[in-house]
């Protein structure tokens, strides 16, 4: 079971990351819990400087940009192994 966190205050890019992550999870037919983290203090605990951040199983895999579908697929499959 994967825990995916999207860090960001609700900006357009954050929503985009969430959409793509959701799609990849569906495509991979895996089970994952997607959590949106919008509180700044909470976000800052992850040592990132700019949102959107993508965290998989408590590990920051991307920050400050929107990763592509292929990239997120790689992140998730790596985390599943």
């Amino acid at each position, binding site marked *: 079971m994967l825990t995916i966190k999207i860090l*960001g*205050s609700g*900006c*357009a*890019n954050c929503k*985009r990351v969430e959409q*793509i992550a959701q799609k990849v999870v569906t495509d991979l037919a895996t089970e994952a819990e997607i959590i949106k983290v919008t509180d*700044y*203090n909470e976000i*800052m605990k992850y*040592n*990132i*400087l*700019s*949102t959107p951040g993508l965290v998989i199983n408590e590990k920051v895999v991307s920050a*400050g*940009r*929107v*990763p*592509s*579908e292929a*990239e997120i697929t790689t992140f998730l499959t790596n985390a599943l192994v």
Partner: protein
Amino acid sequence: MPHMLWMPWNSICPEKKDNPDMDILAFLSKLLYGGLGNLAAYLAAHVLLCLLPAFYIAGAMTALIPKETVTRFLGRNTPRFISYPAAALAGSVLAVCSCTIVPLFAGIYKKGAGLGPAITFLFFAPAANILALVYTGGVIGADLAFARLFLSLAFGIGIGLIMALIFRKDDAAHDKATDEIFAGQSRKGMPRAALAFLLILVALLLSGTLKVGLLTDTYTQFTLPVSGMDRFQDFLYNLVPYDASRGEEGVTAQGAILIGLLALIGLASWKGLEKIHEKFTAWTWIAMGLVGLTLLVASLGMSPHAGGLDILFTGKFFGVMLALLALTLLAWKGLSRDELRDWLWESWHFIKQIFPLLVVGVFAVGVIRVLIKPEWIETLAGQNSLLGNLAGVVFGVFMYFPTLVEVPIAQMFLSLGMHRGPLLAYLMADPELSLQSILITATIIGRLKAWVYVGWVALFSTLAGLIYGAWVDGASLGLVVLYLCLFLAILALVLWLVNRRNAAITAPAQ
């Protein structure tokens, strides 16, 4: 002043007082025409060669410059003479509108950068980012863009230092938070291809907008045998009537073609860039091709006459063409697919976010222009007086305009007779201070700090307007620089004295 915009109907159309229905109808259609005319003229004349490349430059900066390269200088172990300029630089290259600035500001501040550099960042970014400067330069004039840049830089750093000093106790407590994130950041710079890409984008912008003989001269021309273009242009002038003496512009035939192309770009981008994270499609390439085509068409000179359409090949055209070729080559060979995607996405993201606001804003400016009487502006801010500058600042604070819309508003004021000094004061205050951004800032650094910041920005903006206005009025450059230096020196002296006294008080206690 906002309430002054709404004046009684009959003062505008006094001759039709006898029929109130007609009166209002004619009045409304006049407003509508004002708005539409302004919008069409803007899109045709200003947007393309300056704003379109600027959006792509802003996108490239966001996507291709690693944030760590800039922000690693902001830690509190970095000496002040590096961290403050670095904060300003970070502001101008990393953020374009307040929606990007505030999260970054929160990040920088919470991660242990001093309050000072964080404030400098917050101040400098909206006023002097690439989009704002390019747009100001293109629409109002390079002099005002430079004034905006230099004064924002000086005052951003000044305000940062003052804030750090006023709240030094809080800041010391805050400093106990680690700044490991800044120290630990990797030192790898920007990939060379990305840097070259960015520089050529800037060259593209410059070759399209610089007004030097080499670029504006016509080198060769030919005549397209299309008839009717001149009648089309007359038709457009009739459709969008304009009064050059009031600073209004008409729509040319070329402008109409460009507006059409813009609409096509919008459509293709919607299809090709919206889903770019899934894959690049044919629409992506069509959108890019259209952008290139539009820039090329915009850089040509066109003059319709009865016999056909003269196409003039200007230096601009060749400059733009060369830059576009180089960009295509670099994008193909130098950038990775991920970089290319990030760049396109961020640029599209900016366009989507800012362009609609700009369209609405410019329309609104056209409407308001019909309502405002030049005499009001002239009485209030026609001279470079303290009152005029204050008026500019107050208007900037209480009227909230979305990112970049302050520029067409400023142009309207200018054409209605506002002095350039108060105009700069307004341009400095408006993007910094809006009720909305004050409230968000307050949640991050606290209400007291936020309002103190607001006070300083208001003061500094007024000063900036006065100084710049004095220069426009013919005070010699040396004198102006002297005033500026004197002011900064006094400021520095006060800061230094307070700092020393403070050190003397705290030292024995430790």
